[in-house]
């Protein structure tokens, strides 16, 4: 508790709080613009933090992350186009409310539900992660291998769309991850005698390419396709009344919990959480109310928004305690932490507890800021939807280029970004998800070196995994998460 209060005072240092506020506002704007996702926002703003001290920089990015997950609801509600995939479920009832002239009520509910879900998930993060970190302190090579394998399998299998294509993307990422010096013997692999490849492809440029540059190309394609003007926004700004909100508390809290737990599972992201808790809200409602879902029920908006913001805190749990990113956004955050010289993992809680608790306090404040801006800034944020796409697209490219360059002041990274961007565009077009690649770039080297370390420990015998219950369970989970979806689809048929 002392640590948390100390953290809170750190957060309220002038530069930190100002940048956190800026981060949340920028995040809401990015989230509100259709096509610009949370991952992209955080990746684009990563270079902005290079000149800052670690905590301030990370909190700025966390502000962008949290803000953009909420911001996605604005365009989902007003335009029926989710600003981020996380808000797809919000559009179901949100847009219906807009059509009924109740946009303000939907937007207000979305802001409050996002805040409640986010705050709840941060509270759970504060309670769960130190325990998990304590447990993880005993992990050594076999367990870490199990974790990496589990993360890899689940990410590829539930990344949305075709499972086969998700797996291909993941394995392709694993192959790319072997470029550079071998982690154990430093033997150069696939470097073609290029110095720039010795340390492997740096993953931040790959990330910026896959998530930002490719999106700019998609925006251009869409603009060339329809080229029509912006959709007319019909909005009223009457906020929800207190007695309307009273009926939503239970839904918000339940959805916040669901979101947090789904967030903790590596691979499952905000979009899945929103749909799961939307369905739960429907299941828990009274019979006569069930039919109103999809026709403008505030509970639908509250459930999906509380859940997708609940994911934010949950996703931080594996990132901070185990050093394993559960989704693409936390993968960028992992990159940001490493750039700042912070290696997340169980040791972080003992060596830099003050930093961890400052981050916790900052996340708490970020959620409150998001709630305040969300309610007070509705009118303003709806104006953002009028920014023309043909200005946004080149700006994305320019920011991506600066970002890729600034990591190490070298142009090789910029070329990597360009290549990843063009490949990423075609991957999108042919239905290959991008996040498995990025996660494989992080988890692949980890899986490889931990497996080899394990086998050195055991003098080459695989039976060591039988003596390590936690590692064994994780490996079984990994296999199940690959096999079960196939079995399910067979049973369904």
């Amino acid at each position, binding site marked *: 508790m002392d640590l948390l209060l100390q953290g809170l005072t750190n957060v309220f240092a002038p530069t930190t709080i100002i940048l956190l506020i800026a981060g949340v506002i920028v995040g809401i704007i990015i989230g509100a613009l259709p096509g610009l996702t949370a991952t992209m926002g955080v990746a684009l703003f990563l270079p902005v933090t290079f000149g800052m001290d670690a905590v301030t920089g990370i909190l700025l990015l966390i502000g962008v992350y949290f803000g953009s997950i909420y911001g996605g609801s604005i365009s989902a509600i007003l335009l029926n186009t989710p600003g981020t995939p996380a808000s797809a479920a919000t559009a179901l009832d949100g847009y219906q409310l807009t059509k009924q002239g109740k946009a303000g009520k939907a937007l207000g509910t979305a802001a409050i539900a996002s805040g409640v879900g986010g705050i709840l998930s941060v509270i759970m993060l504060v309670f769960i992660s130190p325990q998990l970190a304590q447990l993880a302190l005993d992990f050594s090579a076999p367990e870490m291998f199990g974790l990496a394998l589990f993360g890899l399998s689940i990410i590829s299998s539930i990344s949305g769309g075709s499972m086969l294509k998700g797996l*291909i993307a993941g394995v392709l990422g694993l192959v790319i991850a072997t470029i550079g010096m071998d982690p154990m013997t430093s033997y150069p692999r696939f470097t073609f005698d290029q110095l720039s490849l010795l340390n492997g492809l740096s993953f931040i440029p790959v990330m910026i390419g896959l998530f930002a540059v490719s999106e700019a190309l998609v925006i251009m394609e869409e603009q060339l396709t329809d080229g029509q003007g912006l959709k007319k926004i019909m909005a009223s700004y009457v906020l929800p009344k207190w007695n309307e909100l009273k009926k939503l508390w239970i839904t918000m809290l339940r959805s916040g919990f669901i979101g947090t737990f789904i967030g903790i599972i590596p691979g499952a992201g905000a979009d899945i959480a929103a749909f799961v808790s939307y369905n739960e809200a429907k299941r828990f409602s009274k019979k006569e109310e069930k039919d109103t879902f999809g026709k403008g029920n505030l509970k639908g908006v509250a459930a999906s928004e509380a859940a997708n913001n609940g994911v934010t805190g949950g996703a931080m749990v594996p990132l901070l305690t185990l050093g394993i990113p559960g989704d693409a956004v936390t993968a960028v955050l992992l990159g940001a932490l490493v750039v700042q010289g912070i290696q997340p993992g169980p040791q972080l809680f003992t060596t830099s507890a003050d930093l961890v608790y400052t981050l916790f306090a900052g996340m708490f404040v970020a959620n409150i800021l998001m709630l305040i801006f969300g309610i007070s800034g509705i009118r303003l944020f709806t104006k953002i939807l009028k920014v023309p796409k043909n200005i946004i697209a080149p700006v994305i490219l320019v920011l991506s280029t*600066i970002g890729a360059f600034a990591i190490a002041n070298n142009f090789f990274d910029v070329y990597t970004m360009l290549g990843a961007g063009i490949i990423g565009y075609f991957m999108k077009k042919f239905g290959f998800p991008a996040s498995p690649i990025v996660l494989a770039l992080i988890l692949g080297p980890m899986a490889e070196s931990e497996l080899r370390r394990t086998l050195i420990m055991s003098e080459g015998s695989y039976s060591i995994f039988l003596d390590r219950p936690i590692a064994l369970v994780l490996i079984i989970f990994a296999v199940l998460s690959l096999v079960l979806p196939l079995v399910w689809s067979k049973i369904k048929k």
Partner: protein
Amino acid sequence: MTLANRIISLILLVFSVLVWMGANNFPASNGQGLGPDFFPKVTAIVLGLLSVLLFFKKENDEESVFSFSRTAVPLFVSGIVALVLYVFVIEFIGFTISTILLTFSWMWLMGIRKWVPLIVASILISVGIGAVFEFLLFVPIPHGILY
């Protein structure tokens, strides 16, 4: 989509064979544990198997995945060319000028045809972003010979 899948699967298959052959030259294990060749080989084999599966996968929709009309294709290709040129030219002529050219060409390609807004917006975006990064955030930007 099925045809596209097959082409992609063949490319991936060739790629995985190349990776396997490359990894074959890496030193193998020295008796204990695994050598540098193990992981690339395993991933190459898995990728190869998955690409064979992709070859035989049927997908229902046969329509093109690209949404634009024929007339828009040259515009889109020019956009990609402009981006590639931009990335390679920055190193030599610097961020500011090349960014003005990129934003100008992209906005023109995406349908803004009035000269004054085009020029003003490209200069504002380039100088604005450059200044914010350099003087406010202290993030270095490449200057080349023309700033």
